[in-house]
């Protein structure tokens, strides 16, 4: 990236720490540390920080630096470099996505808020407070941050994949076109040679017929080629739309996150209710009774003879069937207070329909002959 002008100016660049200049040492590389963004040459970094963390050698800067954090400067302007770093860090934390917001407006507010934070950090306004906010947010929304990062990474990789795919396609297309052009040219040439040789060998009367024939063959070939081309194009279009759909799906899937203190207007996530265990009888337990416990034997002078009567029992009759039925009927509806419940029901149904129903019943009763 270094342009010629820059390299020329670099000639007399001097390391602020060891004062060695590029003029003496052309291989000199400058490194910076994002802690304080003070520039120094590679040899200085090696010399000072090889044995562990140390203070910045620049006078007045007492930041503790580590060697592994040193890196090459991307931008010439150190201010830009710093801003980009801050931006990257903040974006990394405040990585809400548009789908997560209720409205476009809320998302825009979020973007603005993010820009404010970045601007604060860059221009060193309320740094401590902003940092605290950021840290708090990061701690609270660890989960969503991580998922959003994953989505972003996925998107990036899919974008990459798409780009390579497109490039590959373009290359193939170009190749196909070139090949086509080649074959066409060769064919035309061959056709023309053939045509000439036939003209040369044939009689003069055939000349017109031969000329027409040659023309026709050429035409046919080109139309066939055109249809082939069309087919390929359709195939590629289908492929493209396919991949697009897949990427859309993956993007929409993840959304949500609780409304936090910092970010407003997030969409509420609806956590699906946990499924209850399946109850085939809807809360009804077949053998459970509230008024009585069914016994296997009840003394009764009418029923006792049946218990031992082969004629009764041969058909599979079981006296317990009778017991369960009679006892159920003895108590079924005992605390079913009709007067109360029916009047309540009628009120619920709403008066008009109830009387209508009754009237209709009367009508139908009276109508029939």
């Amino acid at each position, binding site marked *: 990236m270094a342009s010629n002008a820059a390299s020329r100016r670099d000639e007399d660049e001097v390391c602020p720490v060891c004062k060695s200049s590029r003029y003496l040492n052309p291989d000199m590389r400058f490194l910076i540390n994002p802690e304080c963004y003070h520039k120094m040459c590679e040899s200085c970094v090696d010399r000072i920080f090889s044995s562990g963390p140390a203070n910045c050698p620049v006078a007045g800067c007492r930041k503790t630096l580590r060697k592994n954090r040193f890196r090459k400067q991307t931008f010439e302007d150190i201010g830009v470099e710093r801003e980009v770093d801050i931006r990257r860090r903040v974006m990394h934390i405040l990585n809400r996505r548009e789908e997560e917001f209720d409205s476009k407006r809320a998302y825009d507010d979020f973007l603005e808020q993010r820009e404010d934070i970045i601007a604060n950090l860059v221009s060193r306004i309320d740094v401590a407070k902003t940092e605290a906010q950021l840290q708090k947010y990061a701690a609270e929304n660890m989960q969503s941050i991580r998922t959003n990062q994953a989505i972003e990474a996925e998107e990036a990789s899919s974008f990459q994949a798409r780009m390579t795919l497109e490039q590959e396609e373009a290359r193939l297309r170009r190749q196909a076109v070139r090949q086509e052009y080649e074959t066409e040219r060769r064919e035309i040439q061959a056709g023309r040679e053939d045509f000439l040789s036939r003209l040369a060998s044939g009689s003069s009367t055939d000349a017109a017929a031969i000329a027409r024939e040659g023309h026709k063959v050429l035409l046919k070939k080109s139309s066939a080629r055109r249809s082939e081309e069309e087919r390929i194009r359709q195939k590629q279009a289908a492929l493209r739309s396919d991949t697009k759909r897949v990427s859309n799906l993956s993007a929409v899937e993840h959304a949500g996150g609780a409304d936090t203190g910092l970010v407003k207007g997030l969409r509420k996530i609806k956590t699906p209710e946990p499924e209850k265990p399946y109850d085939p009888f809807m809360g009804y337990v077949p053998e459970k009774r509230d008024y009585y416990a069914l016994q296997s034997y009840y003394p009764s002078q009418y029923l006792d003879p049946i218990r031992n009567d082969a004629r009764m029992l041969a058909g599979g009759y079981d006296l317990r069937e009778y017991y369960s039925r009679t006892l*159920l009927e*003895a108590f*079924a509806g005992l605390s*079913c207070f009709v007067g109360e419940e029916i009047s309540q029901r*009628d009120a619920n149904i709403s008066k008009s329909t109830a009387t209508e129903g009754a009237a209709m019943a009367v009508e139908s*009763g009276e109508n029939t002959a």
Partner: protein
Amino acid sequence: MIEDDIYRASSQYRLWSYTESSLQSLRATTNAVASERVRAALRRSRETHQSTASSTAGTPLPESNTEAKNKDEKDVECLTPEEELVLVRYYCEKTLELGETYKPPIPTMVRATAIQYLRRFYLTNSPMTYHPKSIMACALFVATKTDNYYISLRQFADGIPGDTTTDDVIAPEFLLMQGLRFTFDVRHPFRGLEGGVMELQAIAQGQGQPAPHLPYETAEDLQQGLLSIAPPPVPSSSMSDRIARAHGTTRELLKSAAQMTDAYFLYTPSQIWFSAFLLADRPLAEFLLDVKLGGPVTATIPAPETDENGLVNPLYEIRSKLHHVLTECSTLLQSYTPLSSDPAQMKSLKRIAKKLYHCQNPEKVNLAAQKRESTQPSTAVQSDTGTITSESETERLAKKRKLEQEQIVRQNDDVFGPELVTQRTKQ
């Protein structure tokens, strides 16, 4: 309580349970609609009568005459809902008697079902439209079918006093079903009574089991409790004897009083048999209730039983409510006196019958004929032109049908089935 929910699923609860007021208003509406129709029908019949009379006479009737007619037509007095109710009750009693005439008599359960059918039918239909006499027989016949007590129609019709044909019995059948809203299930208190008596007998013999909500009582406790209740109004030799006696009395009550009153509409079967049981032997019935729901309840001493949550014990609540409902139901059952035993009531009944004769809807009198007409309209038309031809026609058709039938039977008789290729045999 699960048993109550089971009962709530029945059609008797869903469609045939009413409050006293709704029952009354429904009967009033039915009566109003029916009287209006009766008046309209009478007017129509009079008009047709008049027009035929005037056409035969050739001269219009004097004005004063028609006016007078109009006046007395307006004066047609229709039955009131109360009178209708008395009439229906009389025919309910008749249904009981009718069941008795058969050999063997039709079971009580079937008769009770028939009575309930009648009562249900006359909630939305008026005796002025359909005379209970014709509906009664049909209801009993339908009841024999729904309660699985088979009698052939011919046998059934023969059992009815007077010359009732089979057609007369089944003519209003569909009508009746429609009136019943096609719900044939009637929950009777009879079987429930058997269950309650069975429980009591088991307790009396020391084999009882406590109710699921009061599990701390043992069989001995229950037996002791049963033996220590207040003595019966009529002294009896043993506890099981006492129970059997109470059983018999209750059964009689259920057969008569429960059928002839609105008990089925207002209360559930178990409440009905409990109230009848209360009438028969109060200490015994209260003991059974105490066993099932716990805690004696008296109207004078309201015991605010609360559990540790400060809530009123739900069983106690049910018990006190039930006390109220059962008292109501038993007074209703007690209020019943058979019509035939009361000369004053018989007198008013005769008056009502006479009145009904005048306000009977003339268009709905002969149900059997109407049914025949509606099912065979073509023959009815033909009979006007010439009966002989139509009869010969039907005879010919019958013969043809018979021949076809015979052919099919013959073919089916062949072990290897009918011929596959008929043409080959012909050749």
